[in-house]
């Protein structure tokens, strides 16, 4: 197992854990946390490929990861703001109870 493969496996595992949490936890904030984990796993993937890629001096992977971090932060801010607003409206953050769009 090459180092790259190891890193990739770790990233995959982290991604799956994050996904599992996002899919199973009731609290909306924990779903967002799960999504942050998934994003982090993707960042790890990017950096790993940058390190063990053909042209690390091009900084492509690093740049990508930095921008990803920035976007993730922005998205977390907005998402948590939405969750707070929903909580104000529905008095709860339980996703199982939020099925107004049920068709």
């Amino acid at each position: 197992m090459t180092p790259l493969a190891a890193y990739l496996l770790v990233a995959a595992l982290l991604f799956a854990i994050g996904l599992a949490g996002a899919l199973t936890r009731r609290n909306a904030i924990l779903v967002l946390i799960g999504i942050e984990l998934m994003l982090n796993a993707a960042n790890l993937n990017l950096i790993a490929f940058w390190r063990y890629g053909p042209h690390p001096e091009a900084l492509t992977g690093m740049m990508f990861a930095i921008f990803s971090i920035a976007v993730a932060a922005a998205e977390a801010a907005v998402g948590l703001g939405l969750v707070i607003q929903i909580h104000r409206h529905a008095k709860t953050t339980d996703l199982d109870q939020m099925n107004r769009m049920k068709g």
Partner: protein
Amino acid sequence: MQESISFTPQLAASPIAEILWLIPAVPMVAAGVAALLKQAMRKTSATLAIGSMTVSLLLSLVAFAHVIAGWAHGQAVRETVNFTWIQAGAANVDLGWVLDPLSAVMLVMVSFVGLLIFIYSTGYMAHDENYTRFFCFLSLFAGAMLAVVISNSLLLLFMGWELVGLTSYLLIGFWYQKPSAAAAAKKAFLTTRVGDVFFLLGIVWLFAQTGTLLFYDHGAGSMEPGALAALLTQPAALGLTAAGAIGLLIFAGAAGKSGQLPLHVWLPDAMEGPTPVSALIHAATMVAAGVYLIARVYPLMQAGALTGGSTTALTVVTWVGASTAVFAALIAVAQNDIKRILAYSTVSQLGYMMAGLGMGGVAVGMFHLITHAFFKALLFMGAGSVIHGCHEEQDIRKMGGLKADMPLTFLTYTIGMLALCGFPLLFSGFWSKDGILEAAQHWSVARAPFYMLVFGALLTAFYMTRQVAYVFFGYWRGKKPAHESPAAMTVPLAILAFFAMALGLIGTPLWPWFRAFLDGRATGFDVHGFAEPGLLALMGTSTVVVFLGLGLGWRLYGGPAPRPEEPDVLEKAVPLVWGWLQRKLYVDELYGATVIAFYGWWARVSDWLDRRVWGGAVAGVAWAFGLWAQLNRFLDTNVVDGGFDKGCEELSTGGGLLAQVQTGRVQTYLRILAVAVVVLAAILIWSSRA
């Protein structure tokens, strides 16, 4: 028989001829305006009518003066104004009017007598609530009659003819709430209609043969030699030429309108109308229209006659006229209604006019028409005055002794009665009737009409004496006392009485002005007129006959009058004959049994056909449609709707099933997303491996 005179054609019509159309137009406009008036505007309506009639009279007098002026200069005036009404390719339909001696005298007579009767009506109808409507109809009638008189086209004449018939219907049935009046109006209209059908056939045939319906059209008219020659060469059925056949058809129309023998049944019933109507329409003018028509188409009737001979058409006219004269006079003897006696007398006198036309020519018949108009109108108006004075009583057995109570009416009525009987020398009726008798005496075909007409004169004197004796002599047999009529009624009586005497002067053998005027010849006073062979003998004969009739009547009825319940003197003598005469010789019953019964049967058959056969067919079709509609509805509800509904339900259910995917929960959607990514990745990897 007169020779046919040719009138020099006029190149341009005089001013009066140009505006001749105003004479009928003004009363018609007055009628139109009066139709819009409210019932309360009585004075306006009467003023309109009398005013328009006065205008027509003045214009007629101007026209008459113009014609006389022309006659005095030795020029026979016949001015026509023609115009094209319908243009249909090669054949045109022209209308127009004519001003010649015949139309001029008729214009003056109609408008003058009409005006007098209008004035009379203001008094007679004063208590009637439909006063306004009455004068509207009277004006309309006057306009239509004047249109008949001036028309130069057989079509325009026919249009006026029909309008006259319509107004006659409206006026006979004026008191339409009375069932007898409504029935009488209907009878009049239908009976004249029978004649009119033949008339129309004659018109169409004439148009087809000659291509024109104008009488005089500068040589191209239907009464002018060119067209007549063409008609004479055309053979028709039964040995007649086209001229003869058309003449007979036109006479059929005239017979209907003028109450000749088979079609006379409507005239006595027409007495249901108000007395001014009887005076104007059924004595002086409308019934004279038939005679006038024959006079107008006389060249056609006379076409093909040899000098001194007669044609088939004229022979038929004579026989019908003579028969009518005697027939009606017989019935008049046994009538008890004052107006009915006068009605049958009118029928009888119309027969005289027709006979005069047939045997003696236009002047003979027209002279009697003019004099008859005046004295018959006088008699009717006098009868109206009597009825008015006796509080609407019309049965002569319930009158009597009115000589003292209504002196003016008595005087004028006697003058009229003597004129009708033909009292010698002083009264116009004598001269006009003698003209006819003289023509009958010299008729080449047969002698019988002469004897019939003499017998008719005897009967006329007899029944008129009977009537006058019952009404004016003896003692009053009514309930309430009688009174004289107002001036509005008696003044016209006086004027007419004057003319009843004076008109005789224009037709004596001494000065045969009327005949000469109509022929366009000059004439002067000629004592040798009396020297014609047989003339003095004839005058003597008729005088004897008149006195015989008067005497016989006075003998039977001049004595003490019977009480109303007692039967008549003659009735006691010959009850059977009296019964026949009183029942009008059963003509109405005959018609009822034959024509009307057939009509009723035919109507019933048609009704049955209509209801069962055609109606059944329609109902059958409707039923089939109903069935079809039911079937459609079934299909629509069950098949179409049902199918559609089922489809929609399935769709709905399917949609419901599909909608279960939308749980509304975010995590469900995320899961689906993840599954999709897995599947996609698997596919990608598998395909890249391969």
